[in-house]
């Protein structure tokens, strides 16, 4: 197995992303570093209640609730990965970004300058999930590091 000292993984906890996480761990050398990017897709800004009938308290409660819920889901995910990296002797760091997945990944890669970038493939048809995805074609053109795309687990 070739090994890299600094691997960047973009994942958000779906089965496809978890497969990518396992590969990222496998490709990262012991004592290396795993940078984990969690994107909160900007579609959420269209989910903040388009309507005009609610009071501030309702919308604030909702906004805080959604933030809290996303945070809770991200925390669970991060904790799981933190435990796995610790077991493998890999330094772990993560960052939560808000925006379009592809743009966020490019920005994070520029910031961290990893040796390898790992992502999962877009979700196959029929699998449920949020419709917000990476565009590997664009990544391939703009990333500095090599890109590894992990197939969806079957």
């Amino acid at each position, binding site marked *: 197995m070739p090994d890299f000292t600094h691997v960047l993984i973009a994942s958000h906890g779906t089965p496809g992303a978890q497969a990518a996480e396992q590969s990222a761990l496998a490709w990262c050398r012991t004592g290396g570093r795993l940078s984990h990017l969690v994107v909160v897709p900007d579609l959420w*800004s269209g989910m*903040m*209640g*388009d309507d*005009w009938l*609610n*009071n*501030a*308290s309702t*919308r*604030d409660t909702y*906004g805080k609730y959604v933030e809290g819920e996303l945070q809770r889901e991200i925390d669970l995910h991060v904790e799981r990965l933190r435990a796995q990296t610790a077991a493998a002797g890999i330094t772990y760091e993560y960052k939560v970004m808000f925006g379009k997945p592809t743009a966020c990944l490019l920005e994070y890669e520029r910031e961290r300058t990893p040796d390898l970038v790992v992502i999962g493939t877009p979700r196959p048809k029929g699998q449920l999930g949020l419709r917000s995805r990476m565009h590997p074609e664009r990544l391939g053109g703009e990333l500095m590091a090599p890109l590894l795309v992990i197939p969806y687990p079957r």
Partner: protein
Amino acid sequence: MAEDKFDRGSALTIFKNDRQEDFIALVISLLIALLVYLFV
């Protein structure tokens, strides 16, 4: 950002809360009603 005094409102409204938005809407309405009453 939340602690910034002049960063307020949400993605949907510029007002800090809806009571304020409702109130402003009422003030505008009354103002328009007055103008219509006086000039039309």
